[in-house]
């Protein structure tokens, strides 16, 4: 709607999918959680199922817009629009979500790694629509952290970061996901840093190499911030997100 109000786009035809009931809803499936593309952001934020199984998504949604925009805005809409600073597609990248799309030839499933083609550009074909997003929750008690910097609460962030950690009872990390968003045109997994976290102890992490990887991203430049400032933020925010994930991680056997 804002893009039409700005006259950035002027579609010949507009199809209202708001009343397609099957496109909305949060379902628990055998192998995870499926969120319909038309599910309102307010409903995802209020969902106890999401909060208990995908706490990172709940945490990020607190930063998405305001109560009036979350009442109408949908998770699928944000994931198709793909603003580089948008929290929801970024969390899909952090959680390795799968995008279930439907077209004239049937359906296909696109992994998050292939979903982000570029700035505002998803892998969705011209004749396809996004049906749902599938998440595989991390182990119960996993650590999660989120940080972003925006000029005002609810604005699109200048930059943000997310971290997920799984570990054993001894506090050793067995699985990690680290992500920067709003820095490059697409959300960026810090895969080198993720590997270095494995087998480290949650209380004595070597954080500097991780901050260094985030600070070396090919940052965008715009009216809000220079590339240097974005790189600086990327480092600061990944440190905060990771530190929060260490705090929230419960030590499991």
């Amino acid at each position, binding site marked *: 709607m*804002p893009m039409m109000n700005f006259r950035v786009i002027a579609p010949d035809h507009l199809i209202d999918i708001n009343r397609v009931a099957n496109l909305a809803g949060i379902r628990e499936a055998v192998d995870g959680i499926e969120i319909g593309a038309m599910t309102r952001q307010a409903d995802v934020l209020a969902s106890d199922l999401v909060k208990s199984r995908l706490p990172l998504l709940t945490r990020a949604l607190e930063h998405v*817009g305001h*109560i009036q*925009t979350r*009442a109408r805005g949908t998770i699928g809409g944000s994931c198709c629009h793909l603003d580089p600073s948008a929290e929801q597609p970024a969390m899909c990248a952090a959680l390795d979500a799968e995008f279930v799309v439907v077209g004239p030839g049937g359906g296909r499933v696109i992994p998050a790694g292939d979903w982000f083609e570029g700035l505002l550009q998803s892998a969705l074909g011209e004749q396809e629509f996004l049906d749902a997003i599938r998440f595989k929750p991390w182990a119960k008690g996993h650590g999660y952290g989120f940080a972003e910097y925006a000029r005002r609460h609810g604005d699109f962030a200048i930059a943000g970061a997310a971290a997920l950690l799984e570990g054993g009872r001894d506090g050793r990390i067995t699985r990690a996901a680290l992500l920067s968003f709003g820095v490059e045109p697409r959300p960026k997994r810090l895969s080198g840093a993720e590997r270095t976290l494995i087998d480290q102890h949650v209380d004595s992490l070597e954080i500097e190499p991780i901050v260094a990887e985030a600070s070396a991203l090919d940052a965008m430049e715009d009216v809000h911030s220079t590339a240097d400032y974005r790189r600086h933020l990327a480092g600061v925010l990944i440190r905060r997100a990771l530190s929060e994930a260490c705090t929230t991680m419960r030590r499991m056997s």
Partner: protein
Amino acid sequence: MTEHSVTFTLNGERRDARVDPRIHLGDFLRHSLGLTGTHLGCEHGVCGACTVIVDGAPVRSCLMLAVQIDGTVVETVESLGKLGALSPLQQAFATNHGLQCGFCTPGMLMTLEAYLRTTPAPTEQDVRIAISGNICRCTGYDGIVQAALDTASTKASRT
């Protein structure tokens, strides 16, 4: 352009109308129905002045097309009180100096009206987050926040 028929409930009254599909709800309320209480500021979903309540939820009337209100219940600021008989929230705004120029006020009122129905006992921080999508250029927000808190505590003491 083809007009569409819509049937909806507006401020408690059933209405039928023909709407041009390109018109957003805010323009429809103001231009077609003459309900100029709803104010339009930025028209791209940032300022919150145009907030109305649709099916119980506060929404931006500039980000919703008028054709989409078919079958819904719409509430605008005109549904609150009248001069001399203000609603409790409106009276609290007046008492606490929650407005100066008044441009943002309809959006603030409708946001808080919807919010206080679902969150009857908010903290100050809750109220500040609830109105974070409404921009006021005059008051510095303190009076608005106090008005919301007063309304909530008055309601609580009555029940």
